[in-house]
């Protein structure tokens, strides 16, 4: 299914785009999506999104259709339109 993924902050820099349409498989989870994106982007993206064991970092804020989700293993519903990945930022 096609989903728009929005990358914020350092993830946008790491991915080279602010957002893109990505095809994800039915029954994917945020965890599996992050693992696939990290495998594709590598480097800084993977470092921000995943820990050394390939588990999503607790510091990554993820929103589905504008609402934060905290269970990254939950199956992504088939009617989801947007996923937003928000790493912590602090700059001033």
């Amino acid at each position, binding site marked *: 299914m096609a989903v728009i993924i929005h990358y*914020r*902050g*350092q993830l*946008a*820099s790491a991915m080279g785009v*602010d957002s893109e349409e990505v095809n994800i498989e039915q029954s994917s989870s945020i965890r599996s999506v992050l693992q696939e994106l990290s495998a594709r982007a590598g480097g*800084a993206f993977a*470092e*921000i999104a995943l820990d050394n064991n390939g588990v999503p*970092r*607790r*510091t990554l*804020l993820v*929103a589905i259709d*504008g*609402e*934060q*989700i*905290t269970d990254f293993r939950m199956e992504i519903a088939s009617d989801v339109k947007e996923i*937003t990945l*928000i*790493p*912590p*930022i*602090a*700059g*001033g």
Partner: protein
Amino acid sequence: MLNDSDRATYEWQLDVPGFGDSGQLKLGATTALVSRVGGLGGPLAMSLAAAGVGRIILVHGGNLQESDLNRQTLMSRQWLGRPRVECAAETIARFKPEIEVVTVNENFTEDNACGLIAMADIVFDCAPMFEERFLMNRECVKSRKPMIDSAMYSMHGQVMAVVPGITPCLSCVYPEVPGHWKRRFPVIGAVSSLVAQIGALEGIKLISGVGDVSLGHLIMVDAAKMNFSKVKLSPRRHDCDICGNLHVNV
């Protein structure tokens, strides 16, 4: 009661529906603490002063450097080498001398955090390091004081209001210090100023009661596309080390 000078200074904002004398008096009776007076905290503090916040505490250690000048709009090239808080206070005082400005030429540390938060009614977190942000968050939660957290990176910005016991705190949202964050980050001054104004406005609304504060939401700015959006945050985490055990009567 507003005096003639107040009325003359603020007459245009007194007309904002829902603000009026009551909102102005609340601002005037408020002590706001702004952590750092750089690209975010500087313009934010200026807007608080312009709006009539009665007392502003500026907390920022160190002296003005040339590389600050693209974004730190309270500064001036002629002040290079001077303490930033002194420069910021001078700009604010020139703008509106009646505002009481307290300067603290230090950053937030374990040693000064408790005392500084005790002086304030509301805290504006504009610090560039997470250690400081979490420290302010912890102390604000402890003392049940609201904190407006503003942050930016490159063309993106975000603002979140923390009202202890009601909204998620910073540690609910980010349970640990992120390892990847670097002190040096890309910034255009207009973006940090834009985010600062959103932070200032959330605070002004919280103090004065005008409008609706986006409690429980993360306000997000994408200045590259000029998009503004919000994320609805999950409720407070009951296992949060900082606010998990906090009970507040609403």
